[in-house]
């Protein structure tokens, strides 16, 4: 497994660059991921999605489906894509420290 060091923090990541240990998540991780996701600034809206993804993951051990994300954050699908151009299942999950979704994704 690869290790990434950014702003003095070290992160263990899987083969697709997703955090291997959810507990290692910290704001520096978000800073690290945002560039590769084409996001210039983390707004309150981004944060709202990240917070929900983390809460859901803590309770369920898996990423939510987009409908559940939308329902709980109030964002329409288009807004979710505007916030996370690579999509909720990939960019947003990666930034929130969730593992890469399994299956055909």
């Amino acid at each position: 497994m690869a290790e990434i060091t950014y702003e003095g923090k070290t992160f263990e990541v899987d083969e697709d660059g997703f955090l291997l240990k959810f507990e290692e998540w910290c704001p520096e991780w978000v800073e690290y991921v945002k560039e590769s996701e084409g996001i210039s600034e983390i707004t309150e809206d981004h944060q709202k999605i990240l917070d929900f993804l983390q809460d859901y993951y803590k309770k369920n051990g898996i990423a939510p489906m987009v409908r559940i994300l939308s329902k709980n954050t109030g964002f329409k699908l288009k807004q979710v894509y505007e916030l996370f151009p690579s999509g909720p299942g990939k960019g947003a999950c990666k930034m929130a420290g969730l593992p890469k979704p399994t299956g055909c994704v």
Partner: protein
Amino acid sequence: MPQGTFCNTTPIGTEDELKALLGDKGGAQYYEEMKELDVDSDAIAALLEKTCQSRIRTWLEICAHCGMCADSCFLYRVNDRDPKQVPAYKIQSTLGELVKKKGKVTNEFMRHCVDVAWSQCTCCNRCGMYCPHGIDMGVMFSYLRGILNSQGFVPWEMKIGSGMHRVYNAQMDVTTEDWIDTCEWMAEEYEEEWPGLEIPIDKEDADIMYTLNAREPKHYPEDLAEAAILFHLAGENWTVPSTGWEQTSLSMFAGDWAACKMQVESVYNAIEKLRPKRVIGTECGHAHRATVIEGPYWAGREDGLPPAPYIHYVEWVAEALRTGKIKIDPEKKIKEPVTLQDSCNYVRNHGLAKATREIMSYIAEDFREMGPNREHNYCCGGGGGFNGIGKYRKERNKALQTKRDQILATGCKLVIAPCHNCWDAIRDLEEEYEIGIRWSFLKPLLIKMAIVPDHLKLPEE
């Protein structure tokens, strides 16, 4: 005997078991346990006796070791023509040995078979076209996967995938309630742009029942909305079932035969319940293979056919363009050079190359073929579950070089990939090799190009 907590011969049966397995990130403990897993030789021998029948036994015996299959295999070519990547060698040294030794093999041998079956063959079936005897190593590797799975030797993600099918009747955790909610949500969100847009659920005797891939409701619901928009534009009388909508089969990639049968029967039950005139599957390759080509046999259907005519999305698109149900605005045709990925699962394995080319003739001004193409095209590099297995990422990324080079040779910056797996592989090859390409399914492109009939336009237009 050690059966691991996670790596064992018991298939996933409950949501809790599934979540526990997911919690073992990357399968760290799972793969450690696999090293200790006992091999039940008697059980393998009995399974071979029952299932390894004349075709496979004959194939194993008549292989002349001529080597004609070598160059047909993109994994052999891309891995510096390593003799260990010759299809005949790969299958003889795994399934061949297993049969010869009647299952009396070691744990180490079984793990070697796992590596070969899931990282050295994508079951693309290209070798079968080049073997003078017509021996298809892809078919045999699919079979080997089943034998390995029966002993608990299966990659972590594959066990999760088939476990999802067993728990949710879908390759992802999408419940019936979530599915219906997503259909209603997508119809509601997109109705703003498409007045009257509907996603009809459980409509009986419709002309079309539509089936799809769980990734669509789970991660990419716009795909479902786009299908609805195109049916709406074409004026189709269509529906989706509330259960039995999931057309894919990760259990097929996993070699979990019981789950394959269970999954495809859920789709067939929906067909029998709703009695559509025909069924259309989404832009997915393996879903078509699982439900249209192989599924009837898993389900024991005597005629070898699904309960209603079942076509791939590209067949419907070709028909819609041909009959004028969907009309393309000539001004909006794709002007730039564009190439097309032929999915092994419905092109090589179901002869649909003409349908996709017919579509290209309507939508593209400068369509450029990859070489080779049609039935001879190479796998995207991530088929057969390869994309989804983290343990083999290095090998998969190497495999993507074949498609990268095919695309680069066309000079195109846009690749149409009407298959989820191919789409993912092409996305990943761009991430890995940064060759500056874009990739797309047909649906979003068609929506941009289609002429919207007056009665379907927004009132203010």
